[in-house]
């Protein structure tokens, strides 16, 4: 049991790190892109550029949420 906990903790630290909001931001962005791709809404070029911009926006948002939460503590 202790080994399993340590194993799980290792992979959590490895993949999620200090801020769980960042992987969520990445997954949410990729999810939006998959929806747009499957809906055939945009072409490749527009979709890739939108993906880059969305990743930057969601990363900034997660960082700002982090800082605001830090201010309240």
């Amino acid at each position, binding site marked *: 049991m202790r080994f399993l906990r340590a194993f799980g903790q*290792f992979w959590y*630290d490895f*993949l999620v790190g200090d801020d769980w909001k960042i992987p969520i931001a*990445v997954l949410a962005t*990729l999810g939006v892109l998959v929806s747009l*791709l499957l809906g055939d809404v945009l072409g490749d070029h527009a979709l890739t550029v939108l993906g*880059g911009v969305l990743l930057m926006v969601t990363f900034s948002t997660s*960082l700002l949420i982090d800082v605001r939460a*830090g*201010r309240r503590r």
Partner: protein
Amino acid sequence: MDAASWGLVTATFLACFVEMVEATTIVMAMGFTRGWRSALAGTAAALGALVVTTAIAGYALANWLPESALQLVIGGLLLAFGLQWLRKAILRSSGRKAMHDEDQIYLDEVEAARAAGTTGSGLDMFGFMVSFKGVFLEGMEVVFIVITFGLNADNVPVAALGAVGAVVLVLVLAVVLRKPLAMIPENTLKYGVGVLLAAFGTFWAVEGIGVFRSGSESLDWPGADLVLIPLIVGWFLLSRVLIRALRLPAVAPGGARLAAQEVGS
């Protein structure tokens, strides 16, 4: 070597260099306080485990996944590491997180090593385990960076060359100086590597989304590989804007210095 290969070597060299400096601090603290036999045995065991992990993960990624799925996994992993590195760099540069300090980490490790009880004769398990964990954990990110950059450039040996070069350089510096490598501008290096990983991660993760369409064909960025330049510039400019926006004033109106607000861990 062409420009892409040099870029590959530089990225893996810098990432490995930073992680190796951190691992060396831990091993040195254990070596000087708990004995070099256990510290070096832990280091050797961790390096062996990393080699096995690299071989298995590299084989699995290269042989079991279609190209677009590989790009998605590679990009996702690089974004996971890169954005965490970038987040820390932004918080440190804006004064919201303490700077990474190898000297302080060394002192903390030495204190913990002295506080831990002795284990009698034979291999000192405390020194072994702390050294093993330090090298293995710091090494895992390097392993994935080498595999992902190497596979995508179809040149794992060149990527590994950059990592091995960093390992050798850090070891030589550690042996010559015999103290934590606090003079290395680690915060700046991590910032640079964070920007690179974020840009490459964005490029590959978005390309790999194509795995979900019929035919599993990767998405095309405008300008193909050349779009990496605006992506690197974009992530760098965004980080500068965030640092500026989040920067804490150094001195309060009353004259008292504000303590940095620690964000996260």
